[in-house]
Structures are given as C-alpha cells and as structure tokens.
C-alpha cells in the first residue's frame, strides 16, 4: 500500500471489474451528431457554420466568446442540418449544431502535424492547445490553454498528471495509460515546456499496478531529458481531486479558495495529455474521447471511443442496451456524475463515463436526525464540517453555512456517502453554495 495520500476520504466498492483492461473500441459512426456549443467551464461558443454547410471531421464549428473558453469541432463529415437548442448533460438545453453524417469521414485539411516538440515555443504550444479545443477531460472541462497561461508573477515548477481515476466504475484513464503511455508522456512534456516547469509527476492509484508499470516503462524509454516521476498513490476516493493529488504527490496544500497555481503546480488529466500529444503530432482537434460505458445496468460494458455529439442512447444501443432492471443513467462516475432524465442527450468533451445503475443502487432512504458521529468530518478531504454546514443549510441559515466553510467544498460527496443517518449533506451544501454565491453577486 502506498504511503502517498491525503487525510480523509472513503473506500467505496470500486466496481472496476466491468471494464478494467478492456481495449478501447471505436463506436459505430453515428448517422447524426448533435454537438452542443457549450462544452467547457467558462464562456459558450458561437456557431461559425450555417445550416446547409458541408463540414469535415475536425473542422471548427464553434468559436469561443471569451478567453476562458475553447472552440468546438465537427466530429463527422457531412451537412449541417439544424442549429437549435437541444438537451445537454448539465441540464438546461443549449444551442447545438446538428450534422448529418455522410459516412465519408473526410478529414479537415487544416489538421496538419506541427513541428516536433523540441522546436515549439511555449507560446506555440498554448496556441495549439487553444486551436484544437483542448479542455480538462476529467470532467471539469476547464480550457487547457488557460491552465497553460499562468499570470506572469507566478512560476510553475511542477505539472501533475492525474491518473488516479478514483471514481468507482470508470476505467477510461486506466486503459489510456496502458494503450497510450507514450502519448501521455509526450503530452506531459508539452505541458512542462509550455509552463517552464522543471518537474513532471504522473500520480496513479495503486489499485492499477499495470498502469503504474506501463507509465514507468514509457517514462524510462522516452523521458527526453525531462524530469518525470511516476507516483503510486494510496487507493482512496477522492485521490484524483486536484488538491488531494497535489498533497499526495508533493505534500503541498493549496490554500482555501485558491487554484493549484498558488503552490506553483498545474494539474492535467490523462485524457488531456493524450489529446495534447495528438494535437501536436497530428494537428488533431478534440472531437472524440474515450468513454467508459459501464455498470450493472448495461449489457455489454466497454471502453468506447465516442465522437463528440453522439447521443447517449446510440452508445447504449451499441453496448447491447440497458438491462430490464436498469433504473438510473449517470454521465460521469457514481460519486460526482450527473443523473440524466433521458438517454436522448449528446456526449460532450467532459463525458468520462456512461454509467447505468440498477434497482439496488437507487434505494431512497428516509433522512434521520444527525447523531453527531462525526464520520462526515473524518472523511471530508477539505477538513470541513459537513454536518454543521448541512444542518445550517437545511435550516436556510446560509450565513452560518458560509462561516463554516461551505464555499471550500468541492462536492466530492464523501460526507453523503458515509452518513449513517443518510442525510443528504453534500446536496444541502450545494444549495448553500448556490445561495452564498448568489448573495455575493448582489
């Protein structure tokens, strides 16, 4: 068991057996894709194509409206049939571009290999990340080029790649570490060069020893003079949360309310590193990603390469469909993913998993009073007081919730998972965060 860890956290059942080690399989090309024009934290995009336009694979169809944003690209070749709002994984309908697949997969001629990494300047690397629409693929979808542009008064010494994949069920990053280890190292080198960082670390939970071995081998073979270490981390949720990952790998604590930059670190996800490598080597834009299709409610689970804008129901159908007792559809992992009201929703850049849970996972529990066992405080990785914040929020005393540190919660859900009284603590904290943020905007 690895020593590298953080204080708190939980040990849920991992359920990785459904898809662990299953090779990445490309999904059947969909007859139509519906690509939402908002796929990242930050500003949405404006469509730069019109109904009737012919587009090619990888061609830009959405232009960012602000700095904290990333362009969006076509994932099939064919004709734009509609531009109108459509269902979105985060809830409210969002403007989307409908493209009818012509089945030709004609690549966009603008996607050309760049100069080798040795000849690229940091500015050129940032530009490539921006032009290819890279965002954090762990699920938070923060635009990569913004992360690669720290303010001038902050120097970054270390880039940490998140290979923890601490969410139960998900195995997309795991299989990438087995199949694409060299590209991950290449992507990490590009991040390090763009940031002027002297050290790179790849952190992997020690329940994936094959991934640790694969990454160590790749680093040994192709470190290219970069100082890169592979760290095996204690297997514990949420080891992959950026602040916990930095604590485990470097022993540094990011202050409340601050970004990893405050301790001279930038985090990137495994999938993002692969996308960075593809962007440089092939000029490829981010129009597809690996999605773990898993859970007891899907007949044929797998690690599927899915094109942006493919409807979830198309993927489920290809994976044998839902079982009869399937009751819940989640995009992402079971701890932080979003439940969906319908499978008629497109996969986007941040879709790391399609998880289908069955009857036994959807038990509704009566909410009991807090018995002050303090277990939520023990598991809170931020060392907050989930019971205090939750009760304050329950009573709509948002000032008190704020005082107890509600805004420092990143909603990992350990408190709700652990609570023996089945109190929806993180849900109450979420409500408090919304209310506090709204009152501060006033």
């Amino acid at each position: 068991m690895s020593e590298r860890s953080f204080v708190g956290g939980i040990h849920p059942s991992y359920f990785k057996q459904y898809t662990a080690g299953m090779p990445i399989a490309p999904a059947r090309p969909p007859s139509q894709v519906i690509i939402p024009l908002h796929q990242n934290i930050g500003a949405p995009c404006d469509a730069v194509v019109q109904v009737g336009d012919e587009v090619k694979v990888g061609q830009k169809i959405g232009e960012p409206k602000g700095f904290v944003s990333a362009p969006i690209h076509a994932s099939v070749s064919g004709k734009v049939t509609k531009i109108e709002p459509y269902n979105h994984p985060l809830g409210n309908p969002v403007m989307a571009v409908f493209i009818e697949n012509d089945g030709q997969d004609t690549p966009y001629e603008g996607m050309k290999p760049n100069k080798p990494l040795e000849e690229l300047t940091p500015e050129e690397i940032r530009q490539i990340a921006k032009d290819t629409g890279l965002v954090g693929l762990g699920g938070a979808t923060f635009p990569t080029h913004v992360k690669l542009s720290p303010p001038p008064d902050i120097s970054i010494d270390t880039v940490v790649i998140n290979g923890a994949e601490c969410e139960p069920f998900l195995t997309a990053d795991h299989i990438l570490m087995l199949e694409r280890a060299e590209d991950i190292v290449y992507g990490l080198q590009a991040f390090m060069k763009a940031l002027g960082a002297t050290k790179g670390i790849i952190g992997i939970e020690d329940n994936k020893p094959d991934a640790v071995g694969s990454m160590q081998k790749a680093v040994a073979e192709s470190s290219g003079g970069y100082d890169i270490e592979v760290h095996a981390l204690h297997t514990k949720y949420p080891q992959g949360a950026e602040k916990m990952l930095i604590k485990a790998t470097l022993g540094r604590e990011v202050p409340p309310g601050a970004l990893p930059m405050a301790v001279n670190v930038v985090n990137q996800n495994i999938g993002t590193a692969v996308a960075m490598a593809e962007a440089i080597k092939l000029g490829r834009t981010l129009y597809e990603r690996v999605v773990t299709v898993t859970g007891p409610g899907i007949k044929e689970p797998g690690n599927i390469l899915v094109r942006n804008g493919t409807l979830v129901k198309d993927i489920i159908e290809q994976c044998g469909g839902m079982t009869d007792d399937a009751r819940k559809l989640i995009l992402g992992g079971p701890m932080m993913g979003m439940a969906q009201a319908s499978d008629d929703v497109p996969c986007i850049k941040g879709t790391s998993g399609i998880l289908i849970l069955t009857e036994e996972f959807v038990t509704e529990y009566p909410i009991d009073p807090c018995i002050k066992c303090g277990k939520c405080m023990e598991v809170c990785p931020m060392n907050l007081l989930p019971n205090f914040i939750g009760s304050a929020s329950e009573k709509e005393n948002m000032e008190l919730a704020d005082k107890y540190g509600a805004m420092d919660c990143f909603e990992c859900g350990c408190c709700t998972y652990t609570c023996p009284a089945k109190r929806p603590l993180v849900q109450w904290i979420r409500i408090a965060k919304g209310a506090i943020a709204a009152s501060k905007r006033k």
Partner: protein
Amino acid sequence: MQKKLVMSSSPHLRSPESIQSIMVDVLVALFPVALMAVFLFGYRALVTMVIAMVVAMATEAIILRKGNFFGDGSAAVTGLLLAMTLPPSPPWWVVAMGSVVAIAIGKHVYGGIGSNIFNPALVGRAVLVVSWGSHIAGNVWLKPVPFGFAADAVTQASPLATYGASLGDLFIGTVSGSLGETSALALIIGAIWLYYRGHIDWRIPGGFIGVVFILGLISGGFEMGLYHVLAGGVLLGALFMATDMVTSPVTQSGKIIFGVGCGVVTMLIRLYGALPEGVTFGILLMNGLTPIIDNLTLPKRFGEVKKSA
C-alpha cells in the same frame, strides 16, 4: 422504449452503514459484558437487563407511536447500558423507572435521537441514584458466584468502598459491582470491536482513563492508579458511555478535552466527594459542555494557515 429513469443529485453510492447498524454493533460489543454479568451474578442479571431493555424499547415505541418495536435500536442500547450501571438485582420497578426516565426525559424531551444533550442511560441512572439511592447503592452489591446461575444472593461491600480487591480480580471481573462494570476484560473486548467498526476512537477513552490513572497515581502510587482505572465504572463509562456519539464532541481535539474533563470530575468526586463513585456525574457534566467544546475546537480547513493572534 423509453425507460423511466431515477433522477437524483450525486453521489449515487451510499455506504451500507446506518444508525441501526451502528446500534447493532454496540449491542454486539456489549454482548461479552452481558455474558460476564450473567456468568457472575446469575439469572438476576439477566432479568435486570431484559426489564431495562424491554421497558426502554416500549417507552420509545409509545412516544414515537411506531409499531416497529426495535426501531433504530437506540432504545435497546440505552436500556442495556442503563442495566449495566445498576446493581445485579434492584427491584423491578426501579429498573423500569430508570428506563422510562432515560428514554422519556433523557432523550425524547429534547426531540429524540440526536437532539439529547445528556447521555440518556446516565440520566436514568442519575435519577435513580437521587430518588431511590438505597436500592442502587449501599448494601446492594452481590458477591459474584461464577457459574452460579441461581446461587443465593449474598451481599458484600464494593471495591470502591474497601479499596481491598486484587488487581487480578478487578481485571477478570470477579468482584462485586454494577452488572457491566466488574470485568475489565469483557469491556475491553467489546471496545476493540467498536474500534474495529470505526464507532469509537482512542481520544475520549484515552483522555478519560489516562487522567484517572494519573490522578490515582498521585493520590496513592502506581497500584492505586491502576486500581482507580479497573475498579468501579471508569472503563464502562470511558469505553461505552462517554463515547456516545450524540452527547460527546465531534472534533478531534474536543474529544481529548472531553475525555480529560470526564476523568478529572470523576476523580474529584471519588477522592473528595460524598459519593464513592463519580463516573455518572463526571460524564453528565461534560455532556453539558459538549457544544461549547465543539465550538472552541473547530478544525482548520485544508490548506488554511491559522492566523496568529
């Protein structure tokens, strides 16, 4: 086919633990203690424990108007803990009265589980001590008769009155005393189970027992320190009563302060008070201070640097 999908906010996994499973764990932990009580004091111990538990559960069922007699199991725990603090064979109505007071006044007057300030079992015991003291203390301590399930009842003085029992007898439990307090061995076995299941940590028992030992040592040397730990209700109180989740602090440092406070008050009563035993009031007093202790010991957030005052 469009399935009806369940919507809810994450997380979508829950741990299997519930209030009921915790209470069952406590009952399991008390099993060796109860077994030892029957082993030493015979059927009388069994009768006392059954009355206390049944009346406690019935009282709760009536107050909550629920058909489920066992419920979340907390009333059974309270009843059994109360019995553990009683002599082997008080009159049945004293035991029943203790359970009614524990559940009705110790717990539900405050709003039920989670809302009570004081440990319900100890509230029940405190009322009995004050109201019917002659049945609870004094000439009530049965001489233990191992394997004597139906042995004749012979009373003798308690170890805290004589300071004459051997440390070995105190550890095994072959001394007179309350049902649950005589056998250090059985109590420690139960506590190890609770620790293993994650329901208690070392802080409260450590602070409590540590202080009792140190103050005993100061008052009369090393053996007297051990005597104070093993005799009377210190282990029962420190391992099973003071660690009650609802009425003890939630913060890590608060738990140490709480345990130390329990030990100090217990020893002040034992050494200078009118009663031979001080565990009950030591814990009850610290129960009252729990919200203040919590508020004064709120933990530092991750990454937070304590402002120097």
